[in-house]
């Protein structure tokens, strides 16, 4: 195994151990929240997933800019991989959030600004993936992906402020809006450990996915080339 692969393997093991550590700490060494009960503990991984979703989007925009300035397709691979992994974490965040909300606010959904923003982010991610599917030329696909990743990312804070403005005008009818949680020191530590674990997990998944994507692209090109170059001999 090359040294890069060895490093990635090591990092993967580290990510797994960190997530396991966070999980165990959450399960056994973090107090249960008073009003919400056990389900509040979903919050640690839910919020970490949200954080990674945002981070992945930011990274995708940065990788996109790097592609536009350097024209090296490896940046495009990283952009696409970051979006895919980010979508995974965003979906995890949304679904776990809905599961958490149901017993607490007696509703699956609220038009809370953060929830609205994260869902729009998910739609933008999906649109990104569809855009890539619609372009066959690798350099054109890379340019379009980079542009959309950047403009998509810029729209996130704008969407967040719009949704927040909406909320100040229309108070939430269901439930308590902002999660009124008092986090004591132990809970905060668990949260930070989860955030850290998920960040490392993101990096690992990103690198694995990017590596596989590059391999996929290479094989696709070889297959396409092979279709034409069979010399049956005259």
């Amino acid at each position, binding site marked *: 195994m090359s040294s890069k692969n060895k490093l990635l393997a090591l990092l993967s093991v580290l990510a797994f151990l960190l997530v396991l550590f966070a999980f165990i700490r959450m399960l056994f060494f973090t107090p249960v929240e008073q009003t919400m009960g056990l389900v509040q503990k979903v919050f640690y991984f839910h919020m970490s997933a949200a954080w990674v979703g945002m981070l992945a989007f930011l990274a995708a925009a940065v990788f996109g800019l790097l592609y*536009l300035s350097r024209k090296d397709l490896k940046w495009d691979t990283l952009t696409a991989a970051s979006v895919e992994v980010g979508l995974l974490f965003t979906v995890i965040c949304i679904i776990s959030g809905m599961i958490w909300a149901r017993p607490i606010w007696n509703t699956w959904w609220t038009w809370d600004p953060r929830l*609205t923003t994260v869902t*729009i982010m998910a*739609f*933008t991610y*999906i*649109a990104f993936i*569809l*855009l890539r599917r*619609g*372009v*066959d030329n690798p*350099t*054109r696909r890379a*340019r*379009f992906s*980079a*542009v*959309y990743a*950047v*403009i*998509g990312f*810029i*729209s996130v804070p*704008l*969407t967040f*402020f*719009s*949704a927040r*403005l*909406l909320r100040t*005008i229309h108070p939430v009818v269901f439930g308590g809006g902002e999660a009124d949680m008092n986090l004591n020191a132990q809970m905060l530590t668990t949260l930070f450990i989860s955030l850290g674990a998920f960040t490392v997990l993101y990096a690992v998944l990103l690198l694995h996915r990017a590596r596989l994507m590059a391999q996929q692209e290479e094989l696709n090109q070889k297959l396409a080339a092979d279709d034409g170059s069979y010399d049956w001999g005259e």
Partner: protein
Amino acid sequence: MKAWLHSVRVLVWKDLLQEWRSRDILTSMLAFAVLSLFIFNYALELSPLNRAEIAPGIVWVVMVFAGTLGLNRSFTAEQDQGCFEGLIMAVPDLSAIYFAKLLTNLLMMVFLAVLVIPIYSVLYNQSLFNWAFFGVLALGAWGYSAAGTLIASMTVQTRMRDLLLPVLLFPLLLPVNMAVVKSCGVLLGSVAGQDINSWLNLLLVYDVIVTMLSIMVFEYVIKE
């Protein structure tokens, strides 16, 4: 600068003339908009009281959907007839192309509004004649056209074209949608007087940021 303005003016004039001669886009947009108004009437059985409240929402939604027809077509002529290279060589700076297309799309939206609003007023028996309302619609149309022009310039070069435009564009438009509908609600007097300055600021910020960003990245979309 003069050359830039000149090329923008020429490009806008060319597109408007082309559209005037065939009247494809405008008639389809108009038909689509009016039909949508009819559908809304049956879909939302509204008492006169409710109607007043959601008038801006209906008008804006109709404009957003009908607008995609115009956006989709804004680059097809160049794409299908291979005119991009010629266009790129003809202008002093690529931003002129973007700006010209933005203006064309914006003018189409304005034209649509000019026709749709009186028709709405007649169908729903509610006067929407309010200059502030028109102003906010124009700001919204600017943001819509700014984002839409950039996205359309990309989707026209993909396999799925028209199908892809709404999917890519609508998530980006949420701030505009919210700002237009909420502030127009207040302006038309149907929602209790609230401070709409924040919405207008947000809308303006969105318009400026998206336009500037699009100008910066447009060359990567147009040039191979």
